[in-house]
């Protein structure tokens, strides 16, 4: 296979905030990730694309600590976080969403956001009983911020509904809103637009663009290549557990080898339509 890796000036050694090197992960005999490399630059939106089974979600799981890699290294802001548990990685500012919406079903929409801030005073018994005012003060500040985010995401009117009662689209928005509430430095979005209608796809795209404006770095798995072209600064193409090429969407679509060898012409056809 002769593939020409495409690089873009947007990724330089100085502004890489998240990187993976030689990542490997097998499930039984299946090598889901087989030597993937990736770099994500600070303040950009990077897409991770590739056919089903390319290992994209597994890479996100390895980076976010949901699964430990068999081999390879993940660096977050220069720090080696390979094999760290997910809560420690999240504490460093990397927050993720999931491919299938995983709302906290037995909590209300508002509570889904309120549970997010790390190390809340009201999560410690000693504060609950000895510093109730400080707990209440922090809770109020969190509620005000959560309410603001819910208004932004059009979920304010359902704030007191059980999250399990939301529609599919609302659950997508809730998942994104919850991640935003966590004030991430880096956001990993696993197919944030899967199964939503075109109008909502645009809306979610706009939200993600706004996150970049707010200084949040985004790495997102996405199959909708129109969306990728519209909002992503940089694209990483994966297939068979490896990184095939990186670059701008416009560069990749002009690279017939990448298009035909690894996406079977689908990429070309979609972009032309």
């Amino acid at each position, binding site marked *: 296979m002769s593939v020409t890796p495409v690089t873009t000036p947007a990724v330089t050694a100085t502004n890489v905030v998240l990187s993976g090197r030689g990542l490997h992960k097998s499930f039984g005999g299946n090598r889901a990730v087989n030597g993937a490399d990736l770099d994500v630059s600070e303040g950009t939106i990077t897409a991770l694309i590739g056919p089903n089974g390319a290992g994209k979600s597994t890479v996100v799981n390895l980076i*976010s*600590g*949901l699964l430990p890699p068999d081999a390879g290294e993940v660096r977050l802001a220069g720090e080696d976080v390979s094999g760290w*548990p*997910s*809560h420690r990685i*999240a*504490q460093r500012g990397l*927050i*993720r969403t*999931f491919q299938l919406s*995983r709302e*906290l*079903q*037995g*909590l*209300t929409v*508002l*509570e*889904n956001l*309120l*549970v*997010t801030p*790390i190390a*809340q*005073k*009201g*999560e*410690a*018994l000693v504060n*609950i*009983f000895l510093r109730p005012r400080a*707990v209440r003060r922090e*809770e*109020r500040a969190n*509620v*005000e911020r*959560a*309410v603001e985010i819910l*208004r932004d995401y*059009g*979920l*304010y*009117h359902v*704030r*007191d509904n*059980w999250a399990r009662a939301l*529609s599919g*689209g*609302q659950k997508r*928005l809730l998942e994104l809103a*919850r991640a935003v509430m*966590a004030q991430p430095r880096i956001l990993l979005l696993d197919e944030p637009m899967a199964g939503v*209608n075109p*109008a*909502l796809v645009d*809306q979610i795209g706009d939200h993600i663009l706004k996150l970049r404006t707010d200084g949040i770095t985004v790495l997102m798995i996405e199959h909708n290549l129109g969306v990728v072209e519209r909002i992503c600064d940089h694209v990483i193409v994966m297939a068979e557990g490896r990184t095939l090429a990186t670059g701008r969407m416009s560069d990749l679509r002009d690279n017939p080898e990448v298009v035909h060898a690894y996406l079977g012409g689908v990429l070309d056809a979609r972009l032309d339509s």
Partner: protein
Amino acid sequence: MAPILYYGFTLLFFFAAYCVLGWGLNLQFGESGILNFAYIAFVAIGAYIAGVTSSGPPLPGSGQSYVLGATLPFPLGLLAGGVASCLLAVLVAFIAFRRLRSDYLAMVLISISLVMYDFINNYVPLFDGADGLNSVPMPLASTLGLNANSFLIFFAVLTVVIGAFMWLIMSRITRSPLGRTLRAIRDDPDVVSALGKNVFRYQLTAMLIGAFYAGIGGGLIVEFSSSFNTSAWTVPETFIIFAALIIGGLGNNVGVMVGAFVVPVLFTQLPKFIPDIPGHPGLILNLEGAVIGVLLILTMWFRPQGIIPERVRRPDRFLARRTVAAPADAIDADQVDATASPEAAAVDAETVR
């Protein structure tokens, strides 16, 4: 005093004690999703330790043998029971909580409970084996000059007071951000971990608090009844508390109280005072398990959320109060959306669907 009144106070005692036990398990299972099938073992440890630390060393020639015999004044023995149960929780959490899915965790916990049961039942030097403790003194009875009857009333009332105090503590915990985080872990521990929270630490907290309640509940039972042995904490006893939670309403402390009244009091303790049906001695007691089972099935069919379901919490209520105080902002945001631009609201709703 009429015997019926003593029955009443006995039932009152069991109601309060089972509320304490129920709240503890509710925090672990109803709020945190820990399927603690070993809960009765925590109750037992609380009872044994409260018992031996109040009974004094075993008397020579009494034929009894147990460890830690001491005469701690009330309520130190009771607290020792709670603390011992917490120590067991730490041990169990470190054995069982490492990356185990909740159903496997439940199996490990039930195994731990069975191992403990067999060990305590057969290793006589620990808590006198199957005979158990049978002469635990009535706390404060000599100080207050109480006889067996007046002690029964006194201790039932005291248990209600202790129960009320523990209710206040538990409600504050479940209403707090800690309670919310525990409920989030119940729903999806991976998501909570991905939000930067150490799930194990929170589960350990829930185990500790729940175990303390179990230990105190067990301690109260041994101090009320003066005796405790392995027949009091067989596996079905765990399911009686689980049944109480499910029938009363999981994740709701008031529901737990209703469940504690319906299952352990109405269907477990009360039948002990119902006269036998002529010609069928023991039939009523033998039917107890079947009746509770049928009740559980009916609940699952017709009201799976329990008699009093988990309630919606509204942490933003203070915002509404504030808008009332400031008439300039008196329009709720819902109304703003609807009145300012009905079209926009309709489009928004349509888009989101």
